[in-house]
């Protein structure tokens, strides 16, 4: 019976013990009666002979439990005592473990929050994401290739039979409050059945019902998130029924969502929820959200019982043709419409929600988890080496213990106990470290414009993961030395301890193997780190074709002024002049799209026989001057390029080459394919600019067309986006412009951002990979070097006598150094060789994350190998140098 069975069968045990002792007493009594005693007398003498029944029982109990408990306590006490005796060793071991486990846990925590955790709603497995099969390659206007148009959402809602309920939503920034108190909040625009289908119930008041989201809802309500209810309304029940001003419309507060519901998009929390129908009211009657070519809703459904995601997907596919046929947009070329009609819907599991974070960071996080896993591996190898070295230092002690009668099992158990204590301490520290590291990374990932909210609470999966990693670590470095020890012959060890002339090769081979492994793995990590760092450098030092520094982005909204279309142009001119006259402003230009800001606008283009798509942007005259994009050929826009004048275009080199080949593009014309608000038109090329980046820093350069702001086909908007160039610090420029404009026009809403910072925010995934892989790569190299140092130092100690004899026989210091270093160089060469092969094999996994760099980049490989070999050689030179300073006499006497 094992001790835990004993623990749980205590009651049964007690009964048995009782019966056993009672049998004895009864037997003895009956013997005495047979011998002629009266029963009373017999019982009395038996009791006397037997002694205290309770104390006998107690002794029996402790005889059962003491053995394992006592020896375990002894093991722990012994381990703690040996820790106290070598604090440096203990700190090194626990520190290494804490780093390894901590880094792993932190990355896993992030991965879990972004990737693995289910949505905070009941039965998340029943949820499926409904989207366009294969994604929308760019038809119409869309934020995300999987989003659906409002008409398709209506069709899906009305015709599907696979789901017990469907829901649609979009997260948008809205202005809440008025004038000075106005601020931005993230509003979740949802359909009426949204909360009912998700089975989310109010913590206060009520949530929406189907009747809250009906065409033309004149008096929409609003639901608060738990967070906003707490922070803005102090968690008061009186908030229900009061009004919240959203885009200057008073919305009645209906209720509050529960605290644990943070929306369906991982990393993006909502502040308030509003029915979709309210958009018409909030946008002053603008029905743009219902456009047939505007995809903006994310759609999910809750599967009916008995339906699988695959069945639902087949069902959606079957009803798709009719739905897309019924919502064909107008104003597009026949070719575009054919593409639209071929769209099909599909269902994919939505249990973990949808997330831009996942698409953006998924690969990076998995790769980082792999990297930290390798770091942990190196750390463990290091620990095993430390333990091995210490074990051999303690050989004599163990041999004495063996000779004194300790069992080998007991020695192994003692080794395990030490490892376990190390692991527990390391895991505890690592967990604390993980919390700091993961919150640091999250603050790293979030940007000013889109702060990141991740629930990083510890859950059972993460605990299981940490425990698993710790346990593996424990086994790796606990068992190896223990096994080695149990092979030891006590007699010969006592005799020979410290006296070996040369180190026995066989005893030493595990350590060599571990060091070679460490060096090779850390070379792989170093190569990865160098690749990511160089890739990030490529991105930041890339010639984008435009100025990034000293540019302020301005977003101005004139909607509240309610200007007539005719008044818009002079008003905008006036505002631009105001800004231009603000001190320190060098130049300013408007644009229809901020480059590398995540937006794009494409139109079909035909020039002679060539037909393709190009990116279109409409800008004011000073645009190229402001961004310092050189006009290679032709002229800039000027005041004569007005609405009525012939349409003119400035194109980039790629466009010129794509559509006009090698001929001079100046004066040539091309036509655009029609789209709603963008009727077919002919443009004449008046200038050619240098190629610039457009959609993102990473993307390839597309054909690009710039049009004059006055010739913007949909006409002037009551808002403007602009680049403002200044040599003054941008932090104070925004407020200065704001103050100046507010003095004359307090109703203009405006926001300013640093262009360069926005571009950098777009490179966060790359920056994260560069910083973290660099950190882990350096850590790995350091650990491997320490490991090598340890092994060489150990080797020197083992061969002290041999070295002493060699020196006594006349070996020079240089020869001794060469003797030791030849050992180290062999290990380094083997490790680097295996590492190069490993790097080549693993490079493929990283290639998708690299920019302008081959994963098999020979320069990177060579640099990493040389760097590691140098550091490792330096690390092993220290003990070699020390060996050469040995006093031969002392070495020979050493025991």
């Amino acid at each position, binding site marked *: 019976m094992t001790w835990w069975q004993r623990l749980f069968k205590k009651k049964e045990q007690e009964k*048995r013990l009782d*019966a*056993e*002792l009672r*049998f*004895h007493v*009864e*037997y*003895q009594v*009956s013997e005495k009666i047979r011998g002629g005693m009266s029963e009373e007398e017999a019982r009395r003498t038996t009791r006397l*002979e*037997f*002694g*205290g029944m309770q*104390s*006998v029982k107690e*002794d*029996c*109990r*402790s*005889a*059962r439990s003491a*053995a394992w408990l006592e020896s375990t306590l002894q093991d722990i006490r012994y381990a703690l005592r040996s820790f106290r005796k070598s604090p440096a060793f203990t700190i090194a071991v626990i520190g290494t473990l804490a780093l390894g486990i901590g880094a792993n846990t932190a990355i896993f925590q992030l991965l879990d929050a972004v990737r693995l955790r289910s949505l905070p709603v009941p039965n998340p497995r029943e949820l499926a994401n409904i989207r366009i099969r294969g994604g929308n390659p760019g038809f119409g206007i869309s934020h995300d290739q999987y989003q659906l148009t409002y008409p398709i959402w209506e069709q899906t809602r009305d015709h599907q039979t696979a789901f017990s309920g469907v829901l649609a939503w979009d997260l948008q920034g809205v202005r809440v409050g008025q004038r000075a108190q106005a601020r931005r909040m993230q509003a979740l625009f949802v359909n009426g059945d949204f909360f009912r289908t998700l089975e989310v119930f109010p913590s206060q008041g009520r949530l929406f019902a189907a009747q809250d989201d009906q065409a033309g809802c004149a008096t929409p309500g609003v639901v608060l998130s738990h967070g906003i209810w707490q922070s803005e309304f102090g968690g008061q029940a009186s908030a229900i029924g009061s009004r919240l001003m959203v885009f200057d419309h008073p919305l009645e507060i209906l209720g509050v969502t529960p605290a644990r519901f943070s929306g369906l998009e991982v990393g993006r929390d909502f502040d308030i929820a509003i029915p979709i129908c309210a958009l018409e009211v909030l946008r002053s009657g603008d029905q743009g959200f219902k456009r047939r070519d505007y995809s903006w809703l994310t759609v999910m459904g809750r599967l009916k019982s008995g339906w699988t995601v695959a069945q639902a997907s087949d069902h959606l596919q079957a009803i798709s043709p009719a739905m897309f046929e019924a919502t064909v947009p107008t104003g597009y070329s026949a070719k575009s419409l054919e593409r639209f009609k071929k769209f099909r819907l599909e269902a994919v599991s939505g249990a973990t929600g949808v997330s831009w974070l996942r698409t953006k960071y998924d690969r990076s996080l998995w790769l980082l988890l792999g990297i930290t896993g390798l770091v942990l591996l190196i750390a463990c190898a290091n620990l095993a080496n430390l333990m091995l070295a210490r074990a051999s230092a303690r050989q004599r002690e163990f041999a004495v213990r063996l000779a004194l009668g300790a069992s080998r099992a007991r020695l192994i158990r003692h080794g395990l106990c030490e490892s376990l204590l190390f692991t527990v301490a390391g895991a505890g520290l690592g967990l604390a470290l993980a919390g700091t590291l993961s919150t640091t990374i999250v603050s790293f990932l979030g940007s000013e414009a889109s702060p990141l909210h991740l629930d990083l609470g510890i859950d059972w999966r993460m605990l299981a993961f940490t425990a698993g990693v710790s346990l593996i670590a424990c086994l790796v470095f606990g068992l190896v030395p223990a096994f080695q020890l149990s092979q030891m012959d006590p007699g010969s060890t006592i005799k020979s301890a410290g006296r070996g002339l040369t180190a026995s090769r066989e005893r030493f081979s595990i350590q060599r193997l571990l060091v070679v492994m460490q060096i090779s793995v850390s070379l792989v990590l170093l190569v990865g780190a160098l690749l990511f760092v160089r890739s990030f450098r490529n991105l930041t030092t890339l010639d984008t074709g435009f100025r990034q520094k000293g540019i302020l982005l301005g977003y101005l909204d004139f909607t509240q002024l309610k200007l007539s279309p005719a008044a818009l142009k002079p008003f905008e001119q006036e505002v631009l002049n105001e800004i231009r006259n603000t001190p320190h402003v060098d130049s300013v230009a408007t644009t229809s799209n901020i480059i590398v800001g995540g937006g794009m606008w494409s139109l079909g283009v035909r020039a002679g026989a060539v037909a393709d798509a190009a990116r279109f942007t409409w800008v004011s005259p000073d645009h190229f001057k402001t961004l310092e994009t050189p006009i290679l050929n032709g002229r800039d826009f000027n005041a004569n390029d007005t609405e009525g004048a012939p349409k003119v275009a400035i194109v980039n080199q790629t466009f010129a080459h794509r559509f006009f080949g090698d001929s001079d593009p100046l004066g040539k014309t091309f036509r655009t394919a029609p789209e709603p608000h963008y009727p077919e038109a002919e443009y004449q090329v008046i200038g050619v600019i240098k190629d610039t980046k457009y959609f993102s820093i990473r993307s390839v350069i597309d054909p690009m067309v710039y049009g004059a702001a006055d010739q913007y086909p949909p006409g002037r908007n009551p808002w403007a986006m602009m680049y403002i160039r200044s040599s003054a610090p941008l932090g104070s420029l925004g407020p200065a412009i704001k103050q100046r404009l507010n003095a004359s026009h307090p109703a203009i809403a405006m926001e300013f951002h640093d262009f360069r910072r926005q571009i950098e925010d777009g490179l966060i995934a790359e920056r994260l990979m560069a910083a973290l892989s660099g950190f882990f790569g350096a850590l790995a190299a350091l650990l491997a070097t320490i490991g090598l140092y340890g092994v060489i130092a150990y080797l020197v100690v083992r061969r002290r006598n041999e070295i002493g004899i060699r020196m006594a026989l006349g070996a020079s210091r240089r020869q001794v150094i060469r003797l030791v270093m030849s050992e180290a160089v062999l290990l380094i060469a083997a490790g680097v060789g295996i590492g190069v092969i490993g790097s080549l094999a693993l490079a493929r996994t990283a290639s998708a994350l690299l920019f302008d760099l081959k994963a098999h980049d020979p320069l990177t490989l060579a640099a990493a190998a040389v760097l590691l070999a140098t550091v490792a050689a330096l690390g092993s030179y220290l003990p070699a140098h020390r060996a050469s300073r040995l006093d031969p006499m002392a070495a020979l006497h050493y025991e």
Partner: protein
Amino acid sequence: MPPPKNELPQGTLDLLILQVATLGPIHGYAIAQRIQQISRDAVQVLQGSLYPALHRLENKGFLASEWKDSETGREAKFYRLTAKGRRQLKSETENWHRLSEAVGLILGLVKGESS
């Protein structure tokens, strides 16, 4: 007057129990009786130490136990020697012989010198 009962040296009770258990399954009362009998009443086993010793030996795996009917008709806990117990008995017995021989030698030597 009966001869004085001897206290057992530490550790020897275990040895005696294991030896008695070689004869086959036996319950606690019988073990006590048997030791007393074989030693011609020179050794008396106190129940206060017998039962803890039995449990300790069972815990170490030297003895195994099962419940079955005894000669009185009542159920009793019978102990028997395991293979591990048999090995332990062998080595302990050898140890004991060596020790007693050594002690005897020393005592003899001491006697020789004093006489």
